[in-house]
């Protein structure tokens, strides 16, 4: 085809005769050969424009053939079919897909947790703390956050159930209304004799007002309050009476104390006000501004608070009682304490008058002792203040021969230590208002669906008494048009019993009516609704001048050899969250056990009993009229007090939906507290405990290595060493560059952001709130116990817990280390992915492209932090409690997701892909929040609302950081030299984990500082324990 190129010979031919060749290009030109002429004509040798332009049969066929073949390959992709249903009339002010946040509050065990709930397209999807509320300041605990899953629990009670004899029939609210009206009329005639209400603890002013109305109508009725966790984080707090009339509630001020002594009080987690306490505690422990308090903890088992202690003593409950007594004597002028622990505590606090704080536990009579000690030390009124306790009477008995029993929430039949189940079955008529069917509703005639707090109006008071309005974000999910089905709130139920017709407005009307004194007009009402609190509504502080009466004598009997301590569970609390998959699969902060409770035994006791990890033991507990026998699997826990076996409530539920039924071991016959053990014996085969860390007992080789490695991963220092850096052994020496290559070229102009994170080990309590926040934000599935046991949990964010010190002795330290994708600048995962599904973006994020991932899992192998998670099955679809075969899906694999329960789907964050099976995933630094903030900044900039389109420091908070009560996690832009994260990264305490691999992680950790005199090389423990 070269011939086809036409050239005008006459023009190109140099007319040498006229001008003469001034310069020649080659000898051939000079010679003017034919070949040279042809060469010059063809300006681009080898270029054949026809190849691309000219129509040619052969080429056409070749190109089309190839295209068809490759088109065939592209055609392999099936696109999911989706239906769009637009609004025909869009509600005013509503932007589809736009996130909106509303303040509300969640009441648990009678204490409000102030919240800010995110909703999109009319469905709430994420719960965070209310930043305006002093009890939260943006943080929410794991229960409040996980409660969103309860809203979308497909196994919630959806309709009214009526039991007659053995028959259970579906009924309606109006049928119940008719029946209850008759009952109420009958009861009214008897002035309410035989009518008993057994209610969950509540602080709701409206419920209390309606209770009073009911009481007026039926003067002889009984209203009892029932909580399984009786003396634990309940509203009583301080268990003694002032002038024998009123109970008091202590409010601690940890930020004001220099020395804090916790006597078996897990105030950083198992306390109704734990979020606020954790924040204030962390505020008082900043080694960089010189305000570093000292925490001394005496406790029986390892708790979250214990893991934060500078000095921790393990002691049995009886010894703790003795210590408390001895301290009291010592301060009253007695000689040195017999118990060295008591003496050392005395030495630590004696000079801190007015700046120390004794925090009593919930067992025994420490409360009174503590009040006295705080009084002697002048702390009362300074580091601890008191208010009146609003509701004091937790029922200790239930009367016999009840005519009509109304159970509001709770699960009294499961908390069976005083034979509540017999009382319930003994009542003539029983009514249960409940979220989901449980052991109690199995015994009741009328089982009424209860509205979730995000579905109904209400009010409640936080620990300090501040009133919050609970506003609904969604209509009751299973509600039908005439309101015959779906949940109703306590307020609506009580209003109905009082003879009112319940409409959609009932709850709202009652709450407004109750709060009329505080919020007289629409403006104040709207403001409070918006802010999520009524300002200045907290309880009045009272000054306690005189010593009260001791309600019970301390049980100091050293003869008891073994005791069983029963505590509320870190995940399930008293069992009310047993049907919440997120919480079931949440690792215990200390033991890392999921889907189970265990008997925690100290290493020395394990030797004595000749038991190891996973052995089942029989425990017999002394009780009247008969001893109670329990079977529990052993978990050997370093730092557990000798002679004490600890376990938790909330497991062994028999009616708790597909998630909670039959999980773990029931403690129903025993209440929270300390029980005497009469015998312990080893029982039959081993039991499989699933843990997310230390999956099994460890061998010597591994144990030694772990001990050595932990010292590199976790860095600790004493306060003294830290403040005198010349003695610092871990200080910044000369930095040897690990690479000979320079910084990568990030393009021109360089991007505006370099995202990074800082995690302060000195602040992290290991409370797990971030784990749930991440799970809720990023649509992370649960996998079930067997899959966790195989090592397939999906949490993007995990909290590693390491012990240090001699495992055999009680002196074991624990440190928590949140671990998620470190967003390495030189990420090992990115280099090995064959399909480039995990890549780096210019802002330094290690980006995971789910669509592109084919699941070779090479990235996970090469990740030194092992933070990548793989969807071995479609875990959102696969039943968590069935075998692998239950994951079988007939049909296109990407259509499997359509089988996810539609109610469950409503919780999904629409900004985050729901990953299908076969795909790798990991922490993204909440890339959706980053994009959101960037887009908002850009739009506002273009609208002229802000000067710069660059996101300011603090405008982006990943889900984990947002909910962290202590502020241990800080995220930001390194490019901004004044951002918090920039400053923290250059702070002396900052260090990289596995920096020696030159992966250059963007997440840095900050050393843990211990406020102790001397820490014998505490970062290099000799031995560690499984």
């Amino acid at each position, binding site marked *: 085809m070269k011939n086809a190129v036409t050239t005008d010979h006459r023009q190109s031919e140099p007319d040498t005769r006229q001008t003469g060749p001034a310069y020649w290009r080659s000898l051939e030109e000079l010679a003017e050969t034919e070949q040279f002429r042809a060469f010059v004509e063809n300006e681009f040798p080898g270029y054949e424009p026809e190849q691309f332009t000219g129509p040619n049969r052969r080429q056409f066929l070749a190109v089309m053939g190839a295209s068809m073949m*490759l088109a065939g390959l592209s055609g392999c992709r099936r696109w999911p079919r989706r239906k769009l249903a637009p609004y025909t009339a869009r509600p005013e002010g509503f932007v589809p897909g736009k996130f909106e946040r509303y303040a509300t509050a969640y009441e648990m065990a009678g204490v409000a947790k102030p919240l800010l709930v995110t909703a999109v397209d009319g469905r709430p999807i994420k719960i965070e703390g209310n930043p305006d509320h002093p009890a939260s300041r943006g943080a929410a605990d794991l229960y409040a956050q996980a409660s969103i899953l309860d809203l979308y629990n497909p196994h919630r009670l959806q309709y009214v159930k009526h039991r007659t004899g053995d028959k259970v029939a579906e009924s309606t609210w109006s049928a119940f209304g008719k029946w209850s009206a008759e009952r109420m009329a009958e009861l009214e005639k008897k002035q309410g004799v035989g009518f008993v209400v057994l209610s969950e603890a509540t602080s709701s002013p409206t419920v209390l007002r309606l209770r009073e109305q009911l009481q007026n109508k039926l003067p002889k009725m009984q209203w009892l309050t029932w909580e399984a966790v009786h003396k634990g984080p309940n509203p009583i707090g301080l268990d003694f009476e002032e002038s024998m009339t009123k109970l008091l509630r202590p409010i601690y001020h940890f930020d004001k104390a220099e020395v804090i002594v916790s006597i078996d009080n897990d105030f950083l987690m198992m306390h109704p006000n734990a979020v606020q306490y954790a924040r204030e505690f962390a505020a008082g422990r900043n080694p960089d501004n010189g305000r570093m308090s000292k925490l001394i903890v005496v406790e029986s088992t390892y708790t979250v608070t214990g893991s934060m202690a500078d000095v921790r003593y393990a002691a049995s409950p009886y010894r703790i009682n003795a210590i408390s007594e001895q301290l009291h004597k010592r301060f009253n002028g007695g000689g040195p304490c017999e118990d060295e622990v008591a003496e050392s505590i005395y030495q630590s606090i004696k000079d801190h008058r007015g700046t120390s704080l004794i925090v009593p536990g919930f067992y025994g009579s420490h409360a009174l002792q503590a009040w006295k000690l705080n009084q002697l030390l002048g702390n009362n009124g300074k580091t601890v203040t008191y208010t009146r306790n609003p509701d004091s009477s937790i029922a200790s008995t239930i009367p016999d021969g009840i005519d009509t029993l109304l159970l509001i929430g709770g699960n009294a039949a499961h908390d069976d230590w005083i034979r509540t189940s017999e009382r319930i079955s003994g009542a003539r008529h029983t009514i249960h208002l409940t979220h989901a069917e449980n052991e109690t509703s199995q015994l009741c005639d009328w089982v009424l669906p209860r509205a979730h707090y995000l579905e109904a109006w209400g009010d409640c008071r936080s620990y300090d008494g501040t009133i919050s309005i609970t506003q609904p974000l969604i209509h009751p999910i299973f509600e039908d048009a005439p309101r015959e089905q779906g949940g109703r709130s306590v307020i609506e139920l009580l209003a109905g019993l009082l003879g009112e017709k319940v409409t959609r407005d009932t709850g709202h009307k009652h709450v407004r009516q109750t709060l009329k004194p505080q919020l007289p007009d629409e403006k104040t009402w709207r403001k409070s609704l918006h802010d999520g609190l009524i300002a200045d509504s907290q309880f009045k502080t009272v000054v306690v001048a005189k010593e009260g009466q001791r309600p019970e004598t301390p049980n100091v009997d050293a003869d008891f050899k073994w005791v069983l301590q029963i505590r509320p569970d870190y995940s399930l609390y008293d069992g009310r969250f047993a049907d919440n998959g997120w919480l079931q699969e949440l690792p215990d902060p200390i033991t890392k056990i999921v889907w189970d409770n265990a008997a925690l035994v100290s290493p020395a006791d394990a030797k004595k009993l000749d038991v190891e990890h996973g052995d089942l033991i029989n425990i017999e507990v002394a009780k009247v009229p008969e001893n109670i026998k329990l079977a529990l699997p052993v978990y050997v826990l370093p730092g557990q007090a000798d002679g004490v076996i600890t376990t938790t409530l909330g497991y062994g539920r028999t009616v708790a939906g597909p998630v909670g039924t039959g999980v773990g071991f029931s403690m129903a016959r025993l209440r929270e507290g300390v029980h005497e053990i009469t015998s312990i014996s080893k029982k039959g085969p081993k039991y499989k405990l699933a843990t997310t860390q230390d999956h099994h007992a460890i061998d010597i080789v591994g144990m030694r290595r772990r001990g050595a490695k932990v010292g590199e991963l976790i860095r600790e220092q004493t306060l003294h060493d830290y403040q005198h850096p010349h003695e610092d052994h871990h200080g910044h020496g000369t930095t040897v560059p690990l690479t000979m290559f320079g910084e990568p070229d990030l393009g021109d102009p360089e991007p505006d952001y370099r995202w990074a994170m800082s995690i302060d080990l000195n602040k992290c309590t290991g409370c797990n709130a971030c784990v749930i926040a991440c799970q809720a934000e990023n649509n992370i599935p649960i996998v079930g116990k067997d899959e966790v046991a195989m090592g397939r949990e999906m949490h993007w964010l995990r909290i590693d817990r390491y012990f240090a010190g001699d495992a055999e002795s009680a002196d074991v330290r624990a440190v928590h280390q949140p671990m998620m994708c470190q967003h390495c600048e030189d990420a090992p995962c990115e280099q090995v992915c064959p399909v480039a599904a995990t890549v780096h973006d210019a802002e330094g994020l290690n980006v995971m492209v789910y669509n592109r991932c084919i699941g070779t899992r090479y990235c996970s192998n090469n990740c030194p932090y092992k933070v990548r998670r793989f969807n*071995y099955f479609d875990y959102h679809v696969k039943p968590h409690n069935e075998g692998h075969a239950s994951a079988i899906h007939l049909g296109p694999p990407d259509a499997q997701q359509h089988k996810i329960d539609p109610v469950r789907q409503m919780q999904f964050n629409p900004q985050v892909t729901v990953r299908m099976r076969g795909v790798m995933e990991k922490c993204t630094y909440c890339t959706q929040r980053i994009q959101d903030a960037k887009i908002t900044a850009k739009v506002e900039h273009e609208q002229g609302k802000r000067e710069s389109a660059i996101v300011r420091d603090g405008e982006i908070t990943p889900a984990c950081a947002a909910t962290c009560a202590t502020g241990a996690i800080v995220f930001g832009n390194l490019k901004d030299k004044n951002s918090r994260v920039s400053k923290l990264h250059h702070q002396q305490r900052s260090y990289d984990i596995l920096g020696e691999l030159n992966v250059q992680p963007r997440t840095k950790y900050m050393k843990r500082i211990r406020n102790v005199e001397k820490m014998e090389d505490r970062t290099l423990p000799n031995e560690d324990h499984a």
Partner: protein
Amino acid sequence: MTTLTPDNLQDAASANLADDPRRRAPLVTGDQDFASVTETVTHLALRKPPRAWYIAFGISMALLGLLGVLILYLILSGVGVWGNNQPVAWGFPIVNFVFWVGIGHAGTLISAILFLFRQNWRTGINRFAEAMTIFAVVCAGLFPGIHVGRLWLAYWLVPYPNQMAMWPNFRSPLLWDVFAVGTYATVSLLFWYVGMIPDLATLRDRATTKIRKIVYGLLALGWRGSNRHWQRFEKAYLLLAALATPLVLSVHSVVSFDFAVSQVPGWHTTIFPPYFVAGAIFGGFAMVLALAIPARQWFGLKDLITPRHVDNMAKILLGVGLMVTYAYATEVFIAWYGQSPNEQFAFINRAFGQSGWAYWVMVTCNCFIPQLLWFGKLRRNLWLLWGVAVAVNVGMWFERFVIILSLERDFVPSSWGQFMPTWVDMGMLVGSFGLFFTLFLLFCRYLPMVAIAEVKTVMPQAHAGHGDKQYDDVETDESGTADYRIP
């Protein structure tokens, strides 16, 4: 069918094992001439096979069926049916992949490298060693394909222009794997097929049924045995041998990069490429032995695969075994000498940690047991030799398993885990043997198991005319293969 007893094995062994420096040991024993060689080899392909074949084929097919069912189960549910977990994200499938790729080494090594080095004794075993290679690579190719989480998208590993405007990541060793194994499979298949053309022509000429005539005829590509055919054939074969030779070394080097390029302690070692190649040859030769010893017995190939062949292979096995042992020792030495605590722990853990038993199975099978082959007497005991060969195969599987187990404990102790295979893992391993043996038995049944034409070249009759009047009468049969008859 000959019964396999130690006695008659010993008798046969005495035939050509003696080393007489004055003359080369014969490579074909017995009273074999060209016609009988042809008859011996084609007999199986053209006549009804022995009953043992049917039994073996039945078992293999059953296992292959199991593999098929398990793959279906895998596709319908997800890769979680295996024991893989975090941190051990690669489990049995990758172990099996590397194992089979390794097996696939000996064939091409025997064919190509020994051919180039003029090792004439290879003629007796090269054909089925090559076949073994092809089938092993088929087994190997299966596992990475089904191993990925979304196997319906596995074709994204191939660089092709697409609507996503995406190339694969050329930095990833897994991609190199795709190319290396793909190239190796292609070249091995070509090499095997090209070498087989004259023999396929022989089968075509001797075939009795119409279908066979057509199929063998098509496969023989019109071979007539003309001088020109032979000339071109030999040139092509030589070139392919030269092309295949570097691949023998490259494939397993590249496979080893999957591990060596990563930074997992215990994987990140520079010794891996030669270590893997040595291991592959070791495993491959062991597999050839494990197959040849029964095959020569059952299929009456004792005169063509003589005791000398077997002895030579045993010696190679011993030699390569020593190389592998040396590699193990070097690895441990470097871990100590390198002073990297992570690597040191990886090796201590390998031997004495929770899965240390696997390491000692590997060492026993790969280092200790082959030492028996120092002794001629033991080498000639075919029962024992077969046992050693099987042990080496077990050991080589465990070598890869031990490497994978490095993932159990890497940098962050909180993420340490343990790998436990599921029944599906076990079933697929066994099933892959079903696939291998099904293919191999089909090969035995329908294709020439020994390179007929090549064997004839190493028989004394082939050198007729070189001053020996004995072989003057030369007839040529239809296939063009010279059919010499001793007058």
